[in-house]
């Protein structure tokens, strides 16, 4: 489309304009709470990206703080995906079970993870274990609840057809139930991915000895506002990367699913 390049420019034009405006204003004002974007970018480079090429240009600080945080998010999400997905399908397919568990699950979902951090600190050791537990606990609910809903909504006609054809249970599962559940599952996953970032920051603010949230709390307690802003921008970047990754995975999986569904009778 000939309009596409124009659209692309327009999209980034606004961000660029905002950054330029901020730069000009900050230089003029000199407020320590709003350092100019040039200072923030320079700090980000110095703090995380000025390492040797052998380490992907990552500084020791980046390797020691950013990577552990990413690892914890990955671990927590992995647990949530497995538990939420498996339990979601199991509970969703059983009307009785979902009836028994629904209020409990709704309640657990409404529990702020922050209120349980003290308990997690007591149960697990300070640091990675507590953090992974917090992330896993907080992110499992959107996945679980959405998967339950997805599993409930399998087309009954297709189920009957499958039974009539005497499809074995596991085939019903893989060819019918799981594909039908996937769109809802991914809706939950989308929510959980952004939630994971929030929980990571929070868990590290509350008790950790390394990580991005720990670094942010260091920056805050030294009143180094440029550093604080650099961390905020890095968090925004990471969040965007996660969202893009999730969308890519979803697109792949659901594309396959759409194709598969097209072939189903």
């Amino acid at each position, binding site marked *: 489309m000939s309009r596409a390049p124009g659209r692309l420019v327009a999209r980034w034009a606004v961000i660029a304009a905002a950054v330029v405006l901020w730069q000009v204003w900050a230089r003029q004002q000199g407020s*320590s709470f709003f350092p100019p974007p040039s200072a923030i970018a320079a700090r980000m480079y110095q703090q995380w990206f000025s390492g040797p090429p052998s380490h992907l240009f990552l500084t020791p600080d980046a390797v020691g703080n950013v990577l552990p945080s990413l690892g914890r998010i990955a671990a927590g999400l992995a647990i949530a995906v497995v538990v939420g997905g498996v339990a979601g399908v199991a509970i969703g397919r059983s009307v009785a079970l979902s009836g028994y568990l629904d209020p409990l699950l709704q309640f657990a979902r409404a529990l702020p993870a922050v209120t349980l951090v003290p308990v997690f600190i007591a149960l697990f050791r300070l640091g990675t274990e507590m953090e992974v537990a917090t992330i896993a606990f907080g992110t499992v609910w959107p996945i679980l609840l959405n998967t339950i809903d997805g599993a409930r909504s399998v087309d009954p006609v297709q189920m009957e057809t499958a039974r009539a054809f005497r499809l074995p249970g596991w085939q019903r599962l893989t060819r019918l139930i799981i594909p039908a559940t996937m769109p809802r599952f991914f809706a939950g996953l989308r929510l959980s991915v952004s939630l994971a970032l929030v929980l990571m920051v929070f868990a590290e603010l509350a008790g950790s000895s390394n990580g991005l949230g720990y670094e942010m709390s260091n920056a805050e307690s*030294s009143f180094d506002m440029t550093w604080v802003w650099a961390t905020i921008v890095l968090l925004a970047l990471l969040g965007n990367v996660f969202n893009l990754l999730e969308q890519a995975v979803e697109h792949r999986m659901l594309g396959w699913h759409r194709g598969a569904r097209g072939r189903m009778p």
Partner: protein
Amino acid sequence: MFPRRRTACIVAAGLATLWATAACGGSAQPSTSTSSTGTRLEKTHLTVGALPIVDDAPLFLAIKNGYFRQQGLTVTTQIIPQSTLAIPDMLHGTVDIIGTGNYVSFFEGQAQKTFSIRVLSAGATCTQNSFGILTLPKSGIKGPAGLAGKTIAVNLTNNIQTLTADTLLKASGVGPASVKYVVVPFPDMAAALQAGRVNAISVVEPFMTGAEQAMGAVPVMSQCSGSVSRLPLSGYFATAAWAAKYPHTAHAFQVAMAKAQAFADANPSAVQKVLPTYTKITAAAAPHIKLSYYPPALNPAQVQRVADLMLAGGLLKTPLDVRPLLFH
């Protein structure tokens, strides 16, 4: 000095009240009255944020013995868990003065130009036995060398605890990078130590005696010895703008506190008596608490030591001259 004790402080709930508090800011209407030296005070009612630790005892003694009243001041205290948490309040006027805030945090903010402060009065200076690192006997850590590779709980990072610990560890030949610091509020430190979640804790009184008595914790390293012995730890801070706006009030506060500091230094029994009124220390436990020194006046050379230590420890990028920051 750096604890996060939470003591209930009931502020009126309700939307309207919260808005009023947030919107109006500051204390009661400033009314003038005269101090003991006859000069008119710009403001007579002060809200002072205070930490529930031994360093603040002179503040409460000043209230109890009427030193503020003599200067024409009425002081209300508000217990805060960490001095840095009260900084937004100070910047926006809901708190006038922060009591025994540690120098390091405030100097960092000053150097970063995030805010501009003045030190109105000295707070506490450390003593050998009231500030140090403890561990459990079964941990097998003997002396500073044993701390290499271990996890130490601190109340705040990038602060006096890590600064002094790093300095003394280096002096003992232990690389500070090998030690891991984790933030744990003071009241939770003993439990964390006992549960094995940390290997050692960096504490001040009264939490030191608390851990020693509750679980037989033993000292590993004093954080107030060698090059950092008798280091000024904390002071009473106000913003530069506030001090410029209320100079006579600030001076009256200074005079009252000087008297209180001298009194506290000379009368430890009075300090022990006042401790249970604003901390969780019981009257029975108070006599066992080891007290800090309470210098009556600000000593620029001593306070400069803190700034120099910060520069050496990498917390400051350029040297900071503290003399302009001391109010007189």
